[in-house]
Protein backbone atom coordinates (compact mmCIF):
# COMPACT_ATOMS: atom_id res chain seq x y z
CA UNK A 1 0.00 0.00 0.00
CA UNK A 2 2.74 2.43 1.00
CA UNK A 3 4.42 1.68 -2.32
CA UNK A 4 1.45 1.46 -4.66
CA UNK A 5 -0.79 4.27 -3.36
CA UNK A 6 1.84 7.04 -3.75
CA UNK A 7 2.62 5.55 -7.16
CA UNK A 8 -1.05 5.77 -8.15
CA UNK A 9 -1.18 9.30 -6.75
CA UNK A 10 1.88 10.19 -8.84
CA UNK A 11 0.34 8.59 -11.88
CA UNK A 12 -2.85 10.60 -11.47
CA UNK A 13 -1.56 14.02 -10.44
CA UNK A 14 2.15 14.38 -11.16
CA UNK A 15 3.08 17.06 -13.65
CA UNK A 16 6.73 17.15 -14.66
CA UNK A 17 8.59 20.38 -14.14
CA UNK A 18 12.06 21.22 -15.32
CA UNK A 19 14.62 23.91 -14.81
CA UNK A 20 14.95 26.15 -17.88
CA UNK A 21 18.13 25.95 -19.88
CA UNK A 22 20.05 29.10 -18.89
CA UNK A 23 22.98 30.63 -20.73
CA UNK A 24 25.07 33.65 -19.89
CA UNK A 25 24.77 36.29 -22.59
CA UNK A 26 27.99 38.19 -23.40
CA UNK A 27 25.80 40.92 -24.95
CA UNK A 28 23.28 41.67 -22.18
CA UNK A 29 25.72 40.40 -19.48
CA UNK A 30 23.04 38.44 -17.67
CA UNK A 31 21.47 34.99 -17.77
CA UNK A 32 18.93 34.32 -20.50
CA UNK A 33 16.79 31.28 -21.05
CA UNK A 34 13.91 29.93 -23.06
CA UNK A 35 11.00 27.93 -21.85
CA UNK A 36 8.05 26.25 -23.47
CA UNK A 37 4.78 27.15 -21.78
CA UNK A 38 1.23 26.58 -23.00
CA UNK A 39 2.40 25.69 -26.49
CA UNK A 40 4.50 28.84 -26.83
CA UNK A 41 8.26 29.41 -26.64
CA UNK A 42 9.22 32.23 -24.31
CA UNK A 43 12.65 33.88 -24.45
CA UNK A 44 13.44 35.66 -21.21
CA UNK A 45 16.32 37.11 -19.28
CA UNK A 46 16.89 37.26 -15.52
CA UNK A 47 14.78 40.44 -15.25
CA UNK A 48 11.91 38.63 -17.00
CA UNK A 49 12.35 40.84 -20.04
CA UNK A 50 10.90 39.09 -23.05
CA UNK A 51 12.61 38.69 -26.44
CA UNK A 52 11.65 37.25 -29.77
CA UNK A 53 13.60 34.37 -31.27
CA UNK A 54 15.85 36.52 -33.47
CA UNK A 55 16.73 38.79 -30.56
CA UNK A 56 17.43 35.74 -28.42
CA UNK A 57 19.79 34.32 -31.06
CA UNK A 58 21.65 37.64 -31.12
CA UNK A 59 21.98 37.63 -27.34
CA UNK A 60 23.92 34.38 -27.61
CA UNK A 61 26.13 35.08 -30.65
CA UNK A 62 28.46 32.12 -30.02
CA UNK A 63 25.85 29.54 -29.08
CA UNK A 64 23.78 30.38 -32.13
CA UNK A 65 26.73 31.26 -34.35
CA UNK A 66 25.71 28.94 -37.20
CA UNK A 67 22.16 30.33 -37.30
CA UNK A 68 23.42 33.91 -37.22
CA UNK A 69 26.01 33.12 -39.86
CA UNK A 70 23.30 31.78 -42.18
CA UNK A 71 21.51 35.12 -41.81
CA UNK A 72 24.73 37.13 -42.21
CA UNK A 73 24.31 38.44 -38.68
CA UNK A 74 27.28 36.70 -37.06
CA UNK A 75 29.71 38.92 -35.16
CA UNK A 76 33.30 38.82 -36.46
CA UNK A 77 34.74 39.16 -32.95
CA UNK A 78 33.68 39.63 -29.37
CA UNK A 79 35.67 40.92 -26.41
CA UNK A 80 38.78 40.79 -28.58
CA UNK A 81 38.40 37.15 -29.58
CA UNK A 82 37.66 36.28 -33.21
CA UNK A 83 34.46 34.33 -33.74
CA UNK A 84 34.51 31.78 -36.51
CA UNK A 85 33.57 28.15 -37.02
CA UNK A 86 36.93 26.96 -35.72
CA UNK A 87 36.98 29.09 -32.55
CA UNK A 88 33.35 28.28 -31.75
CA UNK A 89 33.99 24.54 -32.08
CA UNK A 90 37.24 24.68 -30.13
CA UNK A 91 35.77 26.65 -27.24
CA UNK A 92 32.88 24.33 -26.45
CA UNK A 93 32.73 22.93 -22.92
CA UNK A 94 30.22 20.68 -21.29
CA UNK A 95 29.78 18.42 -18.32
CA UNK A 96 27.10 17.13 -16.04
CA UNK A 97 26.61 15.01 -12.98
CA UNK A 98 23.96 13.99 -10.50
CA UNK A 99 23.74 11.71 -7.46
CA UNK A 100 22.50 8.81 -9.58
CA UNK A 101 25.58 9.08 -11.80
CA UNK A 102 27.85 8.18 -8.87
CA UNK A 103 25.56 5.95 -6.79
CA UNK A 104 25.07 3.16 -9.29
CA UNK A 105 26.43 -0.32 -9.89
CA UNK A 106 29.70 -0.52 -11.76
CA UNK A 107 30.89 -3.35 -13.95
CA UNK A 108 34.29 -3.76 -12.26
CA UNK A 109 36.34 -3.50 -15.45
CA UNK A 110 37.00 -0.52 -17.70
CA UNK A 111 38.15 -0.26 -21.27
CA UNK A 112 41.50 1.24 -22.08
CA UNK A 113 42.59 2.41 -25.50
CA UNK A 114 45.79 3.29 -27.26
CA UNK A 115 46.24 7.06 -26.99
CA UNK A 116 48.35 7.45 -30.10
CA UNK A 117 46.52 7.58 -33.37
CA UNK A 118 46.92 4.84 -35.91
CA UNK A 119 46.91 6.38 -39.41
CA UNK A 120 45.40 9.66 -38.12
CA UNK A 121 42.50 8.03 -36.24
CA UNK A 122 42.00 6.63 -32.78
CA UNK A 123 41.21 2.94 -32.56
CA UNK A 124 38.52 1.36 -30.41
CA UNK A 125 39.75 -0.21 -27.15
CA UNK A 126 40.93 -3.80 -27.45
CA UNK A 127 41.60 -4.35 -23.76
CA UNK A 128 39.99 -3.77 -20.39
CA UNK A 129 41.62 -3.30 -17.01
CA UNK A 130 40.62 -4.28 -13.52
CA UNK A 131 41.90 -2.66 -10.35
CA UNK A 132 43.40 -5.03 -7.82
CA UNK A 133 44.64 -4.45 -4.30
CA UNK A 134 48.23 -3.70 -5.27
CA UNK A 135 48.22 -3.77 -9.03
CA UNK A 136 46.37 -3.18 -12.25
CA UNK A 137 45.50 -6.05 -14.57
CA UNK A 138 44.86 -5.93 -18.31
CA UNK A 139 42.65 -8.41 -20.14
CA UNK A 140 42.45 -8.92 -23.89
CA UNK A 141 38.95 -8.72 -25.26
CA UNK A 142 39.82 -10.99 -28.17
CA UNK A 143 40.80 -14.09 -26.17
CA UNK A 144 39.75 -13.24 -22.57
CA UNK A 145 43.34 -13.73 -21.39
CA UNK A 146 45.30 -11.59 -18.96
CA UNK A 147 48.09 -9.57 -20.56
CA UNK A 148 50.62 -10.25 -17.84
CA UNK A 149 53.43 -8.28 -19.45
CA UNK A 150 51.38 -5.11 -19.81
CA UNK A 151 49.89 -5.57 -16.36
CA UNK A 152 53.39 -5.71 -14.86
CA UNK A 153 54.60 -2.74 -16.92
CA UNK A 154 51.72 -0.54 -15.77
CA UNK A 155 51.93 -1.71 -12.15
CA UNK A 156 55.66 -0.92 -12.11
CA UNK A 157 55.04 2.45 -13.74
CA UNK A 158 52.49 3.32 -11.06
CA UNK A 159 54.88 2.19 -8.33
CA UNK A 160 57.67 4.30 -9.86
CA UNK A 161 55.67 7.54 -9.43
CA UNK A 162 54.73 6.70 -5.83
CA UNK A 163 51.13 5.64 -6.41
CA UNK A 164 49.30 4.53 -3.28
CA UNK A 165 47.33 1.40 -4.10
CA UNK A 166 44.56 0.57 -4.63
CA UNK A 167 42.93 2.62 -7.38
CA UNK A 168 39.98 4.30 -5.65
CA UNK A 169 38.35 5.83 -8.68
CA UNK A 170 39.16 6.31 -12.34
CA UNK A 171 37.56 8.26 -15.14
CA UNK A 172 38.15 8.12 -18.87
CA UNK A 173 36.32 8.22 -22.19
CA UNK A 174 37.49 5.10 -24.03
CA UNK A 175 35.93 5.77 -27.41
CA UNK A 176 37.42 6.44 -30.83
CA UNK A 177 34.73 9.04 -31.55
CA UNK A 178 36.74 11.99 -30.25
CA UNK A 179 39.60 14.17 -31.40
CA UNK A 180 42.25 12.85 -29.05
CA UNK A 181 42.67 10.59 -26.04
CA UNK A 182 44.08 11.68 -22.74
CA UNK A 183 43.65 8.32 -21.05
CA UNK A 184 42.37 8.07 -17.52
CA UNK A 185 42.39 10.24 -14.45
CA UNK A 186 43.14 7.91 -11.55
CA UNK A 187 42.60 8.60 -7.86
CA UNK A 188 44.78 6.75 -5.36
CA UNK A 189 44.09 5.92 -1.73
CA UNK A 190 45.99 9.06 -0.62
CA UNK A 191 43.55 11.33 -2.55
CA UNK A 192 46.19 12.10 -5.16
CA UNK A 193 45.34 12.14 -8.84
CA UNK A 194 47.37 10.62 -11.68
CA UNK A 195 47.01 10.63 -15.42
CA UNK A 196 47.33 7.19 -17.02
CA UNK A 197 47.88 6.85 -20.75
CA UNK A 198 48.78 3.97 -23.00
CA UNK A 199 51.24 5.12 -25.65
CA UNK A 200 52.37 2.49 -28.14
CA UNK A 201 51.30 -0.15 -25.62
CA UNK A 202 53.56 1.33 -22.94
CA UNK A 203 52.46 3.08 -19.75
CA UNK A 204 52.66 6.83 -19.31
CA UNK A 205 51.80 7.74 -15.74
CA UNK A 206 52.04 11.33 -14.59
CA UNK A 207 51.21 12.73 -11.19
CA UNK A 208 49.04 15.85 -11.18
CA UNK A 209 49.44 18.71 -8.73
CA UNK A 210 46.39 17.61 -6.76
CA UNK A 211 47.32 17.48 -3.08
CA UNK A 212 45.81 15.17 -0.44
CA UNK A 213 44.53 18.29 1.39
CA UNK A 214 42.11 18.93 -1.47
CA UNK A 215 40.38 15.68 -0.51
CA UNK A 216 39.46 14.76 -4.07
CA UNK A 217 36.73 12.12 -4.18
CA UNK A 218 35.32 12.33 -7.70
CA UNK A 219 36.89 12.76 -11.11
CA UNK A 220 35.69 13.32 -14.62
CA UNK A 221 37.91 13.14 -17.69
CA UNK A 222 36.72 15.73 -20.23
CA UNK A 223 39.15 16.11 -23.18
CA UNK A 224 37.84 19.42 -24.59
CA UNK A 225 38.78 20.45 -28.12
CA UNK A 226 41.02 23.34 -27.04
CA UNK A 227 42.98 21.08 -24.65
CA UNK A 228 43.23 23.88 -22.09
CA UNK A 229 42.28 21.47 -19.29
CA UNK A 230 41.43 17.81 -19.29
CA UNK A 231 39.31 17.04 -16.31
CA UNK A 232 37.08 18.06 -13.45
CA UNK A 233 37.60 17.00 -9.86
CA UNK A 234 35.37 17.36 -6.82
CA UNK A 235 37.00 17.65 -3.42
CA UNK A 236 36.63 18.56 0.23
CA UNK A 237 33.99 21.18 1.14
CA UNK A 238 32.26 20.54 -2.20
CA UNK A 239 35.04 22.33 -4.06
CA UNK A 240 35.22 22.11 -7.83
CA UNK A 241 38.63 21.90 -9.50
CA UNK A 242 39.85 21.91 -13.07
CA UNK A 243 42.87 19.77 -13.84
CA UNK A 244 44.81 21.74 -16.41
CA UNK A 245 46.86 20.49 -19.33
CA UNK A 246 50.12 21.12 -17.45
CA UNK A 247 48.74 19.06 -14.50
CA UNK A 248 48.24 22.15 -12.36
CA UNK A 249 44.93 22.53 -10.54
CA UNK A 250 42.56 25.46 -10.69
CA UNK A 251 39.84 25.90 -8.10
CA UNK A 252 36.59 27.36 -9.40
CA UNK A 253 34.41 29.62 -7.33
CA UNK A 254 31.32 27.48 -6.89
CA UNK A 255 30.44 24.41 -4.88
CA UNK A 256 28.97 21.10 -5.97
CA UNK A 257 28.07 18.12 -3.83
CA UNK A 258 27.18 15.35 -6.21
CA UNK A 259 25.64 13.36 -3.36
CA UNK A 260 22.88 15.97 -3.26
CA UNK A 261 23.14 18.31 -6.24
CA UNK A 262 22.52 18.00 -9.93
CA UNK A 263 25.13 19.87 -11.87
CA UNK A 264 25.56 20.78 -15.49
CA UNK A 265 27.97 22.97 -17.34
CA UNK A 266 27.53 24.37 -20.82
CA UNK A 267 30.19 26.66 -22.15
CA UNK A 268 31.60 28.40 -25.14
CA UNK A 269 34.88 30.14 -25.93
CA UNK A 270 33.99 33.13 -23.71
CA UNK A 271 31.76 32.02 -20.87
CA UNK A 272 30.64 28.87 -19.15
CA UNK A 273 27.21 28.65 -17.57
CA UNK A 274 27.06 26.34 -14.58
CA UNK A 275 23.75 25.26 -13.01
CA UNK A 276 23.77 23.59 -9.59
CA UNK A 277 20.40 22.44 -8.31
CA UNK A 278 19.34 21.44 -4.81
CA UNK A 279 16.06 20.62 -3.07
CA UNK A 280 14.80 24.18 -2.91
CA UNK A 281 16.20 25.85 -6.02
CA UNK A 282 19.18 26.30 -8.23
CA UNK A 283 22.30 28.46 -8.51
CA UNK A 284 23.52 29.84 -11.80
CA UNK A 285 27.15 30.78 -12.27
CA UNK A 286 28.81 32.48 -15.22
CA UNK A 287 32.49 31.59 -15.47
CA UNK A 288 35.02 33.36 -17.63
CA UNK A 289 36.37 30.64 -19.92
CA UNK A 290 39.86 32.17 -19.96
CA UNK A 291 40.45 33.25 -16.36
CA UNK A 292 38.01 30.74 -14.79
CA UNK A 293 36.68 33.46 -12.50
CA UNK A 294 33.03 33.69 -11.57
CA UNK A 295 31.63 36.86 -13.09
CA UNK A 296 27.94 36.44 -12.27
CA UNK A 297 25.88 34.42 -9.85
CA UNK A 298 22.14 34.12 -9.37
CA UNK A 299 20.03 32.05 -7.05
CA UNK A 300 16.53 30.97 -8.11
CA UNK A 301 14.06 29.25 -5.82
CA UNK A 302 11.99 26.46 -7.30
CA UNK A 303 8.26 27.00 -6.75
CA UNK A 304 6.68 24.25 -4.66
CA UNK A 305 4.27 22.36 -6.89
CA UNK A 306 0.67 21.91 -5.80
CA UNK A 307 1.28 18.17 -6.23
CA UNK A 308 4.04 18.24 -3.58
CA UNK A 309 1.95 20.45 -1.30
CA UNK A 310 -1.04 18.11 -1.40
CA UNK A 311 1.06 14.94 -1.08
CA UNK A 312 2.07 15.77 2.48
CA UNK A 313 -1.58 16.06 3.52
CA UNK A 314 -2.51 12.67 2.08
CA UNK A 315 0.28 10.23 2.98
CA UNK A 316 2.29 9.99 6.23
CA UNK A 317 5.24 8.79 4.16
CA UNK A 318 6.04 7.18 0.85
CA UNK A 319 7.76 3.89 0.22
CA UNK A 320 10.10 3.36 -2.69
CA UNK A 321 12.26 0.72 -4.25
CA UNK A 322 13.92 3.20 -6.58
CA UNK A 323 14.94 6.78 -5.99
CA UNK A 324 16.16 9.63 -8.18
CA UNK A 325 19.33 9.82 -6.08
CA UNK A 326 20.70 6.40 -7.00
CA UNK A 327 20.26 3.45 -9.30
CA UNK A 328 20.04 0.72 -6.67
CA UNK A 329 16.88 -1.18 -5.88
CA UNK A 330 16.16 -1.45 -2.17
CA UNK A 331 13.24 -0.48 0.07
CA UNK A 332 13.28 2.97 1.63
CA UNK A 333 10.85 5.43 3.17
CA UNK A 334 10.72 9.10 2.21
CA UNK A 335 8.53 12.23 2.44
CA UNK A 336 7.63 11.82 6.11
CA UNK A 337 4.82 14.22 6.97
CA UNK A 338 2.99 15.09 10.20
CA UNK A 339 0.33 16.95 8.22
CA UNK A 340 -1.15 13.60 7.15
CA UNK A 341 -2.05 12.92 10.82
CA UNK A 342 -5.23 14.98 10.34
CA UNK A 343 -6.45 12.73 7.53
CA UNK A 344 -5.23 9.67 9.46
CA UNK A 345 -7.36 10.59 12.49
CA UNK A 346 -10.43 11.18 10.30
CA UNK A 347 -9.91 7.81 8.60
CA UNK A 348 -9.37 6.10 11.97
CA UNK A 349 -12.69 7.55 13.21
CA UNK A 350 -14.44 6.40 10.05
CA UNK A 351 -12.97 2.92 10.39
CA UNK A 352 -14.02 2.76 14.07
CA UNK A 353 -17.58 3.65 13.03
CA UNK A 354 -17.59 1.03 10.23
CA UNK A 355 -16.25 -1.68 12.51
CA UNK A 356 -18.84 -0.89 15.19
CA UNK A 357 -21.64 -1.00 12.62
CA UNK A 358 -20.39 -4.35 11.37
CA UNK A 359 -20.24 -5.43 15.02
CA UNK A 360 -16.59 -6.35 14.68
CA UNK A 361 -14.16 -6.06 17.55
CA UNK A 362 -10.91 -5.39 15.69
CA UNK A 363 -10.49 -2.02 17.35
CA UNK A 364 -6.71 -2.15 17.02
CA UNK A 365 -7.14 -1.37 13.32
CA UNK A 366 -8.33 2.25 13.85
CA UNK A 367 -5.36 2.69 16.19
CA UNK A 368 -2.96 1.52 13.48
CA UNK A 369 -4.74 3.82 11.01
CA UNK A 370 -3.91 6.85 13.18
CA UNK A 371 -0.24 6.21 12.32
CA UNK A 372 -0.45 4.54 8.91
CA UNK A 373 -3.41 6.43 7.43
CA UNK A 374 -4.61 5.28 4.04
CA UNK A 375 -2.04 2.49 3.98
CA UNK A 376 -3.87 0.58 6.73
CA UNK A 377 -7.36 2.02 6.21
CA UNK A 378 -7.91 0.32 2.83
CA UNK A 379 -6.76 -3.19 3.87
CA UNK A 380 -8.62 -2.80 7.18
CA UNK A 381 -11.90 -2.48 5.28
CA UNK A 382 -11.31 -6.00 3.93
CA UNK A 383 -10.22 -7.56 7.21
CA UNK A 384 -13.20 -9.07 8.93
CA UNK A 385 -13.45 -10.96 12.14
CA UNK A 386 -13.19 -14.73 11.68
CA UNK A 387 -12.28 -14.26 8.04
Amino acid at each position, binding site marked *: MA*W*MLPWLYDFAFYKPSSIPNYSFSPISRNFVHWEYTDGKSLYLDSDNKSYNQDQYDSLLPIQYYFILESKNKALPSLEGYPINRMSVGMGMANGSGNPASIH*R*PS*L*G*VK*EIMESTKYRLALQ*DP*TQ*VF*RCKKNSIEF*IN*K*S*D*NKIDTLKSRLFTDAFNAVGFNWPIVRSSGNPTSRKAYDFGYLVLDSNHEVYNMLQIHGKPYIKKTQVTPEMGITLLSMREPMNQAYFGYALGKNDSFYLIMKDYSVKKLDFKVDLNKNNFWLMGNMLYWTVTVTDDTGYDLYAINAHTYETIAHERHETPVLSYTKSLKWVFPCTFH*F*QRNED*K*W*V*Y*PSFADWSYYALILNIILAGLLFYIKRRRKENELWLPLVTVFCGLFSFIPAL*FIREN*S
Partner: protein
Amino acid sequence: MNKAIFFKEWIKTKRTFWILFATMVCFSIYIIFQIFHTCEFVSPTRVWNNFIIDDKGVYINQMQFLPLLAGIILAFVQFVPEITLKRIKLTLHVPYPQQKMLLMMTLIGVLELTTIFVVSLGLYSAYLSTIVCHEIVFSSFMSALPWFVAGIASYILVSTICIEPTWRGRVIEGLMSAIFLRIFFVSVLPKAYSFSIVGLIIVVLLCFLLMLRSMFRFKQGLQD
Protein backbone atom coordinates in the same frame (compact mmCIF):
# COMPACT_ATOMS: atom_id res chain seq x y z
CA MET B 1 6.46 -40.74 4.49
CA ASN B 2 8.55 -37.87 3.15
CA LYS B 3 9.68 -40.09 0.31
CA ALA B 4 6.05 -40.98 -0.47
CA ILE B 5 5.00 -37.31 -0.57
CA PHE B 6 7.95 -36.48 -2.79
CA PHE B 7 7.11 -39.38 -5.08
CA LYS B 8 3.43 -38.41 -5.25
CA GLU B 9 4.30 -34.81 -6.16
CA TRP B 10 6.92 -35.94 -8.64
CA ILE B 11 4.42 -38.16 -10.47
CA LYS B 12 2.06 -35.20 -10.66
CA THR B 13 4.59 -32.66 -11.90
CA LYS B 14 7.22 -34.65 -13.79
CA ARG B 15 5.76 -34.01 -17.23
CA THR B 16 5.54 -30.25 -16.60
CA PHE B 17 9.00 -30.33 -15.04
CA TRP B 18 10.56 -31.84 -18.16
CA ILE B 19 8.68 -29.45 -20.45
CA LEU B 20 9.80 -26.44 -18.41
CA PHE B 21 13.31 -27.86 -18.14
CA ALA B 22 13.54 -28.34 -21.90
CA THR B 23 12.09 -24.88 -22.59
CA MET B 24 14.46 -23.07 -20.26
CA VAL B 25 17.52 -25.03 -21.36
CA CYS B 26 16.63 -24.50 -25.02
CA PHE B 27 16.28 -20.80 -24.36
CA SER B 28 19.69 -20.72 -22.69
CA ILE B 29 21.17 -22.56 -25.68
CA TYR B 30 19.46 -20.09 -28.01
CA ILE B 31 21.14 -17.19 -26.14
CA ILE B 32 24.46 -19.07 -26.21
CA PHE B 33 24.08 -19.41 -29.98
CA GLN B 34 23.48 -15.70 -30.28
CA ILE B 35 26.72 -14.97 -28.42
CA PHE B 36 28.53 -17.65 -30.43
CA HIS B 37 27.22 -16.12 -33.65
CA THR B 38 28.47 -12.66 -32.65
CA CYS B 39 31.88 -14.11 -31.75
CA GLU B 40 32.20 -16.05 -35.00
CA PHE B 41 30.79 -13.57 -37.48
CA VAL B 42 31.70 -10.25 -35.85
CA SER B 43 34.23 -10.67 -33.03
CA PRO B 44 34.39 -11.46 -29.31
CA THR B 45 35.16 -7.77 -28.82
CA ARG B 46 31.59 -6.98 -29.86
CA VAL B 47 30.27 -9.24 -27.09
CA TRP B 48 32.49 -7.42 -24.58
CA ASN B 49 31.27 -4.06 -25.88
CA ASN B 50 27.65 -5.13 -25.58
CA PHE B 51 28.20 -5.91 -21.92
CA ILE B 52 30.30 -2.82 -21.20
CA ILE B 53 27.65 -0.40 -22.49
CA ASP B 54 24.86 -2.59 -21.13
CA ASP B 55 22.26 -1.09 -18.86
CA LYS B 56 19.46 -3.59 -19.35
CA GLY B 57 20.90 -7.07 -18.88
CA VAL B 58 21.92 -7.69 -22.48
CA TYR B 59 21.34 -11.23 -23.90
CA ILE B 60 19.92 -12.69 -20.68
CA ASN B 61 17.04 -10.18 -20.65
CA GLN B 62 15.41 -12.24 -23.38
CA MET B 63 14.36 -14.73 -20.71
CA GLN B 64 13.27 -12.04 -18.24
CA PHE B 65 9.70 -13.31 -17.75
CA LEU B 66 10.33 -16.98 -18.44
CA PRO B 67 11.15 -17.99 -14.82
CA LEU B 68 8.03 -16.13 -13.65
CA LEU B 69 5.93 -18.03 -16.15
CA ALA B 70 7.59 -21.33 -15.18
CA GLY B 71 6.73 -20.73 -11.50
CA ILE B 72 3.10 -19.93 -12.31
CA ILE B 73 2.68 -22.97 -14.58
CA LEU B 74 4.22 -25.38 -12.08
CA ALA B 75 2.05 -24.03 -9.25
CA PHE B 76 -1.09 -24.43 -11.34
CA VAL B 77 -0.18 -27.94 -12.42
CA GLN B 78 0.62 -29.00 -8.88
CA PHE B 79 -2.18 -27.35 -6.91
CA VAL B 80 -5.17 -26.82 -9.21
CA PRO B 81 -5.97 -30.58 -9.41
CA GLU B 82 -5.56 -30.76 -5.61
CA ILE B 83 -8.32 -28.17 -5.22
CA THR B 84 -10.66 -28.96 -8.08
CA LEU B 85 -10.59 -32.72 -7.49
CA LYS B 86 -10.67 -32.16 -3.69
CA ARG B 87 -7.51 -34.24 -3.29
CA ILE B 88 -6.05 -31.79 -0.80
CA LYS B 89 -8.77 -32.73 1.69
CA LEU B 90 -7.53 -36.28 1.65
CA THR B 91 -3.91 -35.19 1.77
CA LEU B 92 -4.54 -33.06 4.86
CA HIS B 93 -6.30 -35.92 6.62
CA VAL B 94 -3.32 -38.24 6.38
CA PRO B 95 -1.82 -38.83 9.87
CA TYR B 96 1.10 -36.55 9.23
CA PRO B 97 1.71 -32.93 10.40
CA GLN B 98 -0.20 -30.71 7.99
CA GLN B 99 2.35 -27.91 7.94
CA LYS B 100 5.08 -30.39 7.17
CA MET B 101 2.95 -31.99 4.48
CA LEU B 102 2.42 -28.65 2.78
CA LEU B 103 6.07 -27.75 3.23
CA MET B 104 7.10 -31.00 1.54
CA MET B 105 4.69 -30.42 -1.31
CA THR B 106 6.01 -26.90 -1.82
CA LEU B 107 9.59 -27.99 -1.36
CA ILE B 108 9.48 -30.35 -4.29
CA GLY B 109 8.12 -27.57 -6.50
CA VAL B 110 10.83 -25.19 -5.31
CA LEU B 111 13.48 -27.88 -5.87
CA GLU B 112 12.22 -28.59 -9.37
CA LEU B 113 12.24 -24.90 -10.26
CA THR B 114 15.66 -24.40 -8.66
CA THR B 115 17.05 -27.30 -10.69
CA ILE B 116 15.65 -25.83 -13.91
CA PHE B 117 16.95 -22.35 -13.10
CA VAL B 118 20.39 -23.51 -11.95
CA VAL B 119 20.91 -25.61 -15.08
CA SER B 120 19.75 -22.91 -17.52
CA LEU B 121 21.58 -20.04 -15.79
CA GLY B 122 24.61 -22.28 -15.19
CA LEU B 123 24.83 -23.22 -18.87
CA TYR B 124 24.65 -19.59 -19.91
CA SER B 125 27.18 -18.44 -17.28
CA ALA B 126 29.60 -21.29 -18.04
CA TYR B 127 29.63 -20.46 -21.74
CA LEU B 128 29.87 -16.74 -21.09
CA SER B 129 32.90 -17.22 -18.82
CA THR B 130 34.84 -18.53 -21.83
CA ILE B 131 34.24 -15.27 -23.72
CA VAL B 132 34.36 -12.50 -21.10
CA CYS B 133 35.96 -11.89 -17.71
CA HIS B 134 34.38 -13.01 -14.44
CA GLU B 135 33.25 -9.46 -13.53
CA ILE B 136 31.00 -9.38 -16.58
CA VAL B 137 29.74 -12.93 -15.96
CA PHE B 138 28.87 -11.95 -12.38
CA SER B 139 27.18 -8.77 -13.58
CA SER B 140 25.07 -10.72 -16.06
CA PHE B 141 24.24 -13.32 -13.42
CA MET B 142 23.15 -10.57 -11.02
CA SER B 143 20.95 -9.06 -13.75
CA ALA B 144 19.12 -12.35 -14.07
CA LEU B 145 19.00 -13.42 -10.41
CA PRO B 146 15.98 -11.26 -9.44
CA TRP B 147 14.00 -12.71 -12.35
CA PHE B 148 14.79 -16.25 -11.22
CA VAL B 149 13.91 -15.43 -7.60
CA ALA B 150 10.65 -14.01 -8.98
CA GLY B 151 10.08 -17.44 -10.52
CA ILE B 152 10.27 -19.11 -7.10
CA ALA B 153 8.13 -16.33 -5.60
CA SER B 154 5.47 -16.71 -8.29
CA TYR B 155 5.34 -20.46 -7.61
CA ILE B 156 4.78 -20.00 -3.86
CA LEU B 157 2.29 -17.16 -4.29
CA VAL B 158 0.24 -18.85 -7.01
CA SER B 159 0.17 -22.02 -4.88
CA THR B 160 -1.14 -19.89 -2.01
CA ILE B 161 -3.87 -18.46 -4.23
CA CYS B 162 -4.82 -21.97 -5.39
CA ILE B 163 -5.18 -23.26 -1.83
CA GLU B 164 -7.09 -20.19 -0.64
CA PRO B 165 -10.72 -21.34 -0.20
CA THR B 166 -12.57 -18.05 -0.86
CA TRP B 167 -12.65 -16.05 -4.09
CA ARG B 168 -12.49 -12.81 -2.10
CA GLY B 169 -9.27 -14.03 -0.51
CA ARG B 170 -7.92 -15.15 -3.89
CA VAL B 171 -8.53 -11.72 -5.43
CA ILE B 172 -6.81 -9.94 -2.52
CA GLU B 173 -3.91 -12.39 -2.54
CA GLY B 174 -3.68 -12.12 -6.33
CA LEU B 175 -3.42 -8.33 -6.15
CA MET B 176 -0.85 -8.44 -3.35
CA SER B 177 1.15 -11.08 -5.25
CA ALA B 178 1.16 -9.00 -8.42
CA ILE B 179 2.43 -5.98 -6.45
CA PHE B 180 5.09 -8.08 -4.73
CA LEU B 181 6.26 -9.68 -7.98
CA ARG B 182 6.51 -6.22 -9.55
CA ILE B 183 9.43 -5.51 -7.18
CA PHE B 184 11.62 -7.97 -9.11
CA PHE B 185 11.12 -6.08 -12.34
CA VAL B 186 11.45 -2.41 -11.34
CA SER B 187 14.99 -2.20 -12.73
CA VAL B 188 16.86 -4.08 -15.42
CA LEU B 189 20.19 -2.43 -14.63
CA PRO B 190 22.82 -5.11 -13.95
CA LYS B 191 23.64 -5.51 -10.23
CA ALA B 192 20.89 -3.03 -9.23
CA TYR B 193 19.53 -5.56 -6.70
CA SER B 194 22.93 -6.21 -5.08
CA PHE B 195 21.85 -4.67 -1.75
CA SER B 196 18.39 -6.16 -1.64
CA ILE B 197 18.44 -9.57 -3.28
CA VAL B 198 19.25 -11.48 -0.06
CA GLY B 199 16.41 -9.69 1.75
CA LEU B 200 14.06 -10.45 -1.12
CA ILE B 201 14.99 -14.14 -1.05
CA ILE B 202 14.20 -14.24 2.69
CA VAL B 203 10.83 -12.52 2.07
CA VAL B 204 10.08 -15.04 -0.70
CA LEU B 205 10.75 -17.92 1.70
CA LEU B 206 8.55 -16.24 4.31
CA CYS B 207 5.73 -16.25 1.75
CA PHE B 208 5.33 -19.89 2.77
CA LEU B 209 3.61 -18.56 5.91
CA LEU B 210 0.90 -17.12 3.66
CA MET B 211 0.45 -20.58 2.23
CA LEU B 212 0.00 -22.01 5.72
CA ARG B 213 -2.62 -19.33 6.40
CA SER B 214 -4.54 -20.35 3.28
CA MET B 215 -4.29 -23.97 4.34
CA PHE B 216 -5.74 -23.23 7.79
CA ARG B 217 -8.56 -21.27 6.16
CA PHE B 218 -9.16 -24.22 3.85
CA LYS B 219 -9.21 -26.60 6.83
CA GLN B 220 -11.72 -24.34 8.59
CA GLY B 221 -13.96 -24.75 5.56
CA LEU B 222 -14.32 -21.03 4.88
CA GLN B 223 -16.46 -20.17 1.88
CA ASP B 224 -17.59 -16.99 0.09
